[in-house]
């Protein structure tokens, strides 16, 4: 991809200022490649290692003299890994939990963000600060007492337990409020004259106009909750409610580190849905994370 500067071209006398400038520009760009390519290799190597190992034999993993690539690709590692644990159930649970959280969050943050962006009411600033407090103290900071609460509610080891702590989102409310505030007030005025009440304005004007923010928030929320480990780890203890990351963690434990090939095959299965989405909708993903919180 990077074409290194030909040394001959470097020593060639500059015939005009144009070519000199051109040469310097090319050099500058290629210097960046020289710097970035090794870093790129470093960053990519864990992923490469996962894939390569998932296709090796167990012997090859531990043999220092075996090559970097497997002699024969062991595709059978994949069905073997999937047979160890009910990954189908995990997948369904992951989808249900992530989807459930996303839908609940979208409803709560839309309503709350509209109130903060467009309505005036006593206590607005204090309430907004209280919402922001959740950004500072997420569930990972209060997991202990939240566990006690969930236990008392009697929903331990159930899918709702995986969803309820994430229904409200201070971050999402903040993000959406910022987006709502960018919508010109005249549009809301026009909608009022067109006969819309607050909910009509929200539905017909605000939501269609902040779609990019909603997509960005959704992507971040899905990545966060799809990958979440700590909370599901604490509140689940049976196969029927476990999510993919928990299943993967369990597999690692039960195999006690011995069978890396199966484990890496399972890892490929667990990480590929998101990575696949990422590759397909790269621009959307990158834009979402890029501009989250900046608007």
């Amino acid at each position, binding site marked *: 991809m990077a074409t290194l500067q030909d040394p001959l071209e470097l020593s060639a006398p500059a015939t005009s200022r144009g070519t000199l400038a051109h040469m310097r520009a090319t050099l500058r760009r290629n210097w960046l490649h020289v710097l970035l390519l090794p870093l790129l290799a470093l960053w990519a190597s864990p992923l490469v290692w996962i894939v390569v190992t998932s296709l090796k034999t167990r012997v090859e993993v531990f043999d220092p003299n075996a090559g970097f690539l497997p002699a024969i690709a062991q595709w059978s590692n994949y069905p073997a890994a999937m047979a160890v644990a009910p990954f189908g159930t995990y997948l369904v649970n992951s989808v249900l939990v992530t989807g459930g959280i996303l839908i609940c969050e979208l409803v709560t943050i839309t309503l709350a963000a509209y109130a903060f962006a467009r309505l005036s009411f006593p206590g607005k600033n204090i309430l907004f600060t209280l919402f922001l407090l959740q950004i500072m103290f997420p569930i990972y900071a209060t997991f202990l007492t939240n566990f006690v609460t969930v236990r008392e509610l009697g929903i331990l080891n159930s899918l709702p337990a995986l969803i309820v702590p994430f229904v409200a989102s201070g971050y999402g409310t903040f993000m959406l409020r910022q987006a709502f505030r960018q919508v010109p007030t005249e549009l809301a005025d026009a909608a009022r*004259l*067109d006969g819309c009440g607050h909910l009509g304005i929200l539905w017909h004007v605000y939501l269609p106009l902040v779609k990019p923010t909603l997509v960005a928030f959704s992507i971040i929320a899905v990545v966060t909750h799809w990958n979440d480990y700590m909370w599901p780890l604490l509140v689940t203890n049976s196969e029927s409610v476990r999510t993919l990351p928990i299943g993967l963690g369990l597999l690692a434990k039960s195999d006690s580190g011995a069978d890396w090939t199966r484990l890496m095959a399972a890892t490929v299965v667990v990480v590929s849905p998101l990575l696949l989405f990422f590759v397909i909708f790269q621009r959307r993903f990158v834009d979402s994370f890029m501009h989250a919180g900046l608007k």
Partner: protein
Amino acid sequence: MAEVVLQGVSKSYQGRPTVHGVDLAVADREFMVLVGPSGCGKSTTLRMVAGLEEITAGRLLIDGRDVTHAEPQKRDIAMVFQSYALYPHMTAYRNMAFGLLKTSKLPKAEIDRRIGEAAEILHITHLLERKPNALSGGERQRVAIGRALVRQPKVFLFDEPLSNLDAKLRTHMRGELKRLHKELGLTVIYVTHDQIEAMTLGTRVAILSEGRLQQVGAPMDLYMRPANTFVATFIGSPEMSLLRCALRPNGAGSVVHHPRFDTHIPGALERAEPGDILLGVRPEEVTLSPPETPAMARGTVERTELIGSEALAEIRMGDDRLMARTPVMQAPDVGAEVGLSFDMARVRLFDAATGRALARL
């Protein structure tokens, strides 16, 4: 019939008054322009009529019905916004249909017919399937007007609708609005800060300053007979010059004394006692003459400015400055001494303390 009556309509934000008891009656088919500098309360007044701002005190009647606290959609009004406020995610057609779908139970065919008709009047039939960002400024403007037209409201409200257009398009749209008003017999309340727009569009013009109604009248009336110095200087470009003078009754008329000249005003005045006044002279009411000829006063030319067929000259007379309009060929040189005469039949007098016009009886 569509009449709008404002009775002592006031607005205050957190106890701070911004509009003070505006009384205004807009007649059926009238094009009423609210004009004033920014922050004078004209937009707030319009938004109160629209129902977008709560009326703090006073009453608002539309067609004899008290709508002071009615919801906007129940007032039978339509509004065209400064930024057009077209819904960016809807086509021009949807933008125009949206309000009808929300507020009326009109059949689809009737909605289609109304939009088709409005589109034809506004020459936007070919644009109906486009979204606002595929339209030019002028086209958006037309769609926004179309959105108001299809509602067939009693009253049309315009909030500085032309200020986002370039100068040429603005002149064109001004003509269009005039045509629409005349052809369709609309009742319009129109807010602008541009006095030329106000003078050319309005059948009557209401001038606001600092939240108070200064004067209401036909454009020429305001120009010729301003009620106070604010109206006098706000209307007309370049603005009227105000010269501070002392007034003394003398026989059937009065003597006006200025450090640089004395003159006589024929006829009786509203006020008989002597005192300070401001003499209001419009640039076209000044005649310049060569220094050696007899004249009412003398001054020095500070600056001249060509404006096509005419020239403007700023003349210094002691501490006062005064604008005069002359034919280009007779424009004086900068620095020259000139003689000045005023058309004393047309000049206006204002009370120096209150700024109120002194009626000439």
